[in-house]
């Protein structure tokens, strides 16, 4: 059974309220999620709690009858379906950043709830598989960014700062911060399109 089929099978079991299946999903995805939440929170205990929250949300989201604005469990995974890995990644990041912001007393940013809209934007399983297989190449793309832009991206992704907060924190004009960040995203977007579009892209 390939990875996608295994995850899909586990999600079906989770939908049937099989806790062991959720535990098996945890085994598969927790290390990757923990790496990210640890980067955000730096402390093992709180990082693990954020990962747990992502799985609790998954349990609730794929419930046969759910009052949450969340994806139907049947729509997760499978080649053309929303990737469970992507869904869990965004959930764990949101959980970790909420804790981080609370700890530093920053105003809470309204989180992008993983509602129907956002779920429909999340990468499909086949796209995530492609990204995962091209991970080294994609890391090289990131390192092609100027160091200053990479550091700005880190502040966004792993420290949850907004553009206005970065400008204030660094004492830089907001227009410059916005320009640098948007240039970085433009670069990544175009490179990613090239990699996703052709297997043999030479970067």
């Amino acid at each position: 059974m390939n990875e996608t089929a295994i995850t899909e099978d586990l999600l079906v079991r989770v939908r049937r309220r099989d806790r062991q299946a959720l535990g098996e999903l945890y085994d598969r995805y927790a290390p990757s999620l923990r790496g990210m939440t640890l980067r955000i929170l730096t402390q093992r205990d709180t990082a693990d709690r954020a990962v747990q929250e992502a799985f609790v949300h998954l349990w609730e989201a794929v419930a046969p009858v759910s009052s949450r604005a969340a994806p139907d469990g049947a729509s997760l995974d499978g080649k053309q379906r929303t990737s469970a890995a992507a869904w869990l990644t965004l959930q764990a990041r949101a959980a970790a950043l909420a804790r981080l912001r609370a700890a530093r007393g920053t105003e809470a940013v309204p989180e992008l709830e993983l509602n129907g809209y956002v779920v429909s934007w999340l990468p499909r399983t086949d796209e995530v598989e492609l990204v995962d297989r091209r991970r080294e190449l994609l890391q090289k793309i990131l390192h092609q960014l100027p160091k200053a832009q990479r550091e700005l991206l880190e502040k966004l992704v792993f420290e949850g700062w907004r553009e206005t907060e970065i400008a204030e924190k660094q004492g830089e004009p907001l227009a410059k911060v916005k320009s640098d960040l948007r240039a970085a995203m433009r670069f990544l977007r175009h490179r990613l399109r090239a990699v996703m579009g052709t297997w043999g892209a030479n970067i």
Partner: protein
Amino acid sequence: MGCQHLEELYELYLLGALDPEDAARVTEHVRRQCPSCCQGLREAALTVYLLCQTTSPARASARADSQQKAELLRRLRVR
């Protein structure tokens, strides 16, 4: 719908990095189910996923992992 000027905002929107005014501009198009913005946000979500994957996996000890999993399953029973 004239959303070329929004293209540069999609990743930042998904990351929660925009100020409320810029975020509202994207949200407005989302609410209108603008096809161009929705497609742009789909692509942006892949970039965001990639950015989140730049950390290395962090494995816990077998004992710690077992404890974390047990705690997770306990949390489910309470709900």
